[in-house]
Structure formats: structure tokens, C-alpha cells
């Protein structure tokens, strides 16, 4: 809780800078308009206008807040204009993708720690796979999956999974290799099987690493879903909302969708953090 004050202070500064930037960036338009209309504007008129434009270059914080409020609290959550509705669409694909990505990442990590050919062969390609611009291939993936008769939630989830499997795999490989030589030797003196070593030593000691990468993974998964929502016929979800805001130059709508997405990401990370705390405490690893 001692973090509240610093965070508030920083937030306050950000909001102040934001307002200043909004005035500065939107002023050009106000002046240009006045110019076209052939009128003079005073500074206070400029300020009032820049903070309330319909299509600002940078919307003012209160505009974004009002839009957020209007599209969450004041709309039925089943309405297409409700951010809760779109958030839920995005969230469900994110969670499914996260589940797929985590499973794949863990399995890959297990494979890598148990099979040298996999370690040598797969790892460089896994790294290369992450340098491919996902936004470029997302539409193709969706088309290919569509042609295989898969549509709806799953193509989005697969792209989400593609982005989240990597951090999970990397963290998990580190985690499964975390036991030191002595801990492993202990298992050998018991003549423990590979299986026993895995369940009783490698898996528990990988937990802190796993959770650290799950936090990265869940955020990546959300990004993946949003990316996948951009071209996928841009229908529902926060990504579609971002894009449609973008077609019509609705900056306020873009920013509010953006904030909704960031809030969603932050909540997901916090939830993973809470699960981490509980698990590690149960395991006696959170001192």
C-alpha cells in the first residue's frame, strides 16, 4: 500500500503532461479552422476547443474517461456498443489461447530438457519464429484455418497461443533446469526414476520461473488476440473496436479501447500474480 502515493504522484504528472500535450497537439487544428473561417481565437478559447474536439489528435484524459464510462457503465453489457461486451470477446479468446500456448510451451520445455536433439534443433527456430511479424501472417493463418473449416474463437486463440508459448517455454526450460547439481545428485542416490525426478524435483523448482513467464505470456496472449481481431473481418472484440475507431478517425474511441485493453492485460497479470503468491505460499517458497 505504500506504493499508492508514488503511483498517484506519477499518474498526476502524467495526466498533467497529457493535458499539456493535448492542448499543444490539437491547437494546430483549432488555428487552422479559425484561419479557414477567417476569425481570431484567444488563448482560452484555444484551450477550451483543444480539450473538447470531436476528432482530436490527442484526446484529453477526461474525454477518454467519459467515453470509457459511457461504453461500460452506461451500456447493457450485451450491447455491441459496450466495451464490456467487446472485452469479453477478447478475453475469452485470450484465455483459450493462453491455455493452448501455456500447454504447448510447457510440453516443448519438457521435450527440450529431456531430448538433446530437441534442444539443439528446436530452440534456434523457436527464436526465429518469434521474429516473424505476427501481424503479417495473422490474416493468412486465419484464411488457412478458415479454409480448413475452423473459424470463430479458435483462429484468434491460435495466434494468441503463438505469441504466448515462447516466453512460457523459455521460462520453463530455465525452471526445469533450475535444480542444482546437488539436488539432482540426491535423486540419483535414491535411484529415482526420471519420472520421479520430474514430479518431485524439476517441476516444483520450476514454479517461480513458470509464474514469471506466465505473466509475460498472458500479456502476450492478449496482444495476439487483438492482433488477430484486426483483420479477422473486424467484427467484435477490442481489436475490432480499435480498428473501426481508426477507420473513422475516432481517436477517443481508439484510446478508450486501448485503455480497456491495457486494463484487461493488467488485471490478467495481477490475477496470475495472485495465483502465484498463493501457490508459492502453499509450497513454502514465498518467504
Amino acid at each position, binding site marked *: 500500500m505504500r506504493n499508492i502515493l508514488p503511483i498517484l504522484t506519477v499518474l498526476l504528472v502524467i495526466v498533467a503532461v497529457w493535458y499539456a500535450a493535448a492542448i499543444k497537439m490539437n491547437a494546430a487544428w483549432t488555428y487552422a479552422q479559425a484561419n479557414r473561417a477567417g476569425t481570431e481565437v484567444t488563448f482560452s478559447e484555444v484551450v477550451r476547443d483543444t480539450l473538447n474536439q470531436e476528432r482530436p489528435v490527442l484526446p484529453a484524459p477526461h474525454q477518454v474517461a467519459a467515453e470509457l464510462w459511457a461504453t461500460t457503465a452506461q451500456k447493457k453489457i450485451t450491447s455491441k456498443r459496450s466495451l464490456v461486451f467487446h472485452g469479453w470477446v477478447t478475453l475469452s479468446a485470450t484465455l483459450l489461447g493462453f491455455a493452448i500456448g501455456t500447454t504447448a510451451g510447457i510440453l516443448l520445455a519438457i521435450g527440450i530438457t529431456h531430448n538433446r536433439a530437441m534442444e539443439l534443433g528446436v530452440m534456434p527456430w523457436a527464436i526465429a519464429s518469434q521474429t516473424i511479424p505476427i501481424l503479417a501472417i495473422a490474416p493468412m493463418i486465419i484464411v488457412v484455418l478458415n479454409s480448413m473449416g475452423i473459424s470463430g474463437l479458435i483462429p484468434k486463440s491460435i495466434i494468441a497461443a503463438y505469441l504466448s508459448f515462447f516466453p512460457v517455454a523459455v521460462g520453463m526450460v530455465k525452471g526445469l533446469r533450475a535444480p542444482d547439481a*546437488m539436488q539432482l545428485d540426491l*535423486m540419483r*542416490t*535414491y535411484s529415482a526414476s526420471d519420472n*520421479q525426478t520430474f514430479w518431485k524435483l524439476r517441476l516444483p523448482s520450476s*514454479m517461480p520461473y513458470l509464474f514469471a513467464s506466465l505473466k509475460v505470456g498472458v500479456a502476450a496472449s492478449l496482444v495476439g488476440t487483438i492482433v488477430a481481431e484486426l483483420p479477422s473481418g473486424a467484427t467484435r472484440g477490442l481489436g475490432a473496436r480499435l480498428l473501426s475507431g481508426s477507420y473513422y478517425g475516432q481517436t477517443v474511441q481508439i484510446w478508450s479501447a486501448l485503455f480497456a485493453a491495457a486494463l484487461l492485460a493488467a488485471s490478467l497479470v495481477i490475477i496470475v500474480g495472485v495465483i502465484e503468491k498463493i501457490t508459492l505460499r502453499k509450497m*513454502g517458497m514465498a*518467504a
Partner: protein
Amino acid sequence: MKKPVIDASGVDLTFQTKDAPVHALKDVNLQIDKGDFVSFIGPSGCGKTTLLRCIAALETPTGGSLTVNGLSPDEARKARSYGYVFQAAGLYPWRTIEKNIKLPLEIMGYPKAEMDERVKRVLDLVDLSGFGKKFPWQLSGGMQQRASIARALAFDADILLMDEPFGALDEIVRDKLNEELLKLWDRTGKTICFVTHSIPEAVYLSTKIVVMSPRPGRITDVIESPLPRERPLEIRDTPEFIEIAHRVREGLREGHNT
């Protein structure tokens, strides 16, 4: 004549490293009988740990022969003949003390009831009853070390390998644990191999003291202790004790100078 429990002859071990090979053990010959308490002493890096690891089949000698109970070390390991206590306690931090001690029992598939019974017994033995539900980091270093000994005692290994188990403890605690260890050895008749840096500790505990010297690690002296099995702490002030200690010190010093 009865067969030795551990029989090393001409054991040699060279580690292949990136730069130069390290000759860690050279022509090690040693017989250890059932019920012996053998201490290994020698300067840092002389191969004490390596030798213990060879016995436990954690390393494979590159030469010579080594048998344990007439089997190869690896077969003996598969027969679960070893209890190994490492220099650091090495408890698993995510398990309570109780569950740490249960670990080998789970792996070896003991029935539930017997597990509980054994855990209780060894916790008593190392004076840790009441701490079973604590996590390792809630205990002091000395208590952790005792828990790790309890873990090695929980199952019926007839050979106990201990690598500087008391290195991190202060003298008083160490004395107490030394006494306890002797009692335990007396009661169970286990064969114990014990690595230490402390001359008095080696002399106080052992029936046989193996002095080693480095580069390459080899045995320079094996001293059979004439001390009785029953050893009060005060025995350390007797002339016999001092004499053996002197001989060990001389052996060690020689090793240092070569």
C-alpha cells in the same frame, strides 16, 4: 576373512575439461569393512568429494576397480544402499521438514503408515520433533543440517556417505552433533564415510582415518584408530587422541608441501 563393504583398488579418475584434463584421483586403494566409521581428510581440492561420489556412483572412475557389497557402485545405487548427506543441507525449499524426510520414502515406495512412523522416529533421533511442519527456511542452519541427516537415515541404507556435514556449524553445536552421530552409528551398525576438514573431528569420530593429498588426489596415509567405540567428548584430551591428531596433522602437512 570377511569381504569388505567397499573395495577400491587402483581407482583413477580424470575429468575432461575444456582446457586441461584434471587428474582428480590417482591409484586409490582402500578397503572399508562393515560397521567402519571412516573419515576422509585432506586439503581443499584433493578429491575427497570425488571419491565419495565415485562410491555413490555419481561419478564413474576412469580406471581401477571399485565394488560395493560385491556389486558395482551403480548396482548398489539401484539397490538403494546409500544415504548421502551433502555439505549444504540441500533440503527442497518447497517441502516441509517432514515431507523432505519423506522424499526418499516416497520414491522407494514405502507404505503410508510406515512412512509416518519412520519420519517420527528420525525426527526424534535428530532432536527435531515438533519442527516437522516447518519449512526449511524457518529453521537455523544447524537444524537444517540435522534435518538433512534425518533424511538420509529415514530409509535403510547400510552405507552413509557424509560430505562435510557439519562444516557450517559452530563448535558447540558441532560437538553435540558429533556425539549424536557416534551414538547413532553405534546403535545401527551402519558403515559411515565421512569427509571433514577438522582434525579433531576426524579423530574423535573414526575407526579409520584416510589422509589424502592433492594433484593428483591420492591416499597418503590410512590410520586405524585404537580409540574405543565408546567415546565421551573428554576423550579429546587423552594422550592417545592427541597423538593420533598429531599423526594426521603431519600427514596433512606433508601433502601440502608436495
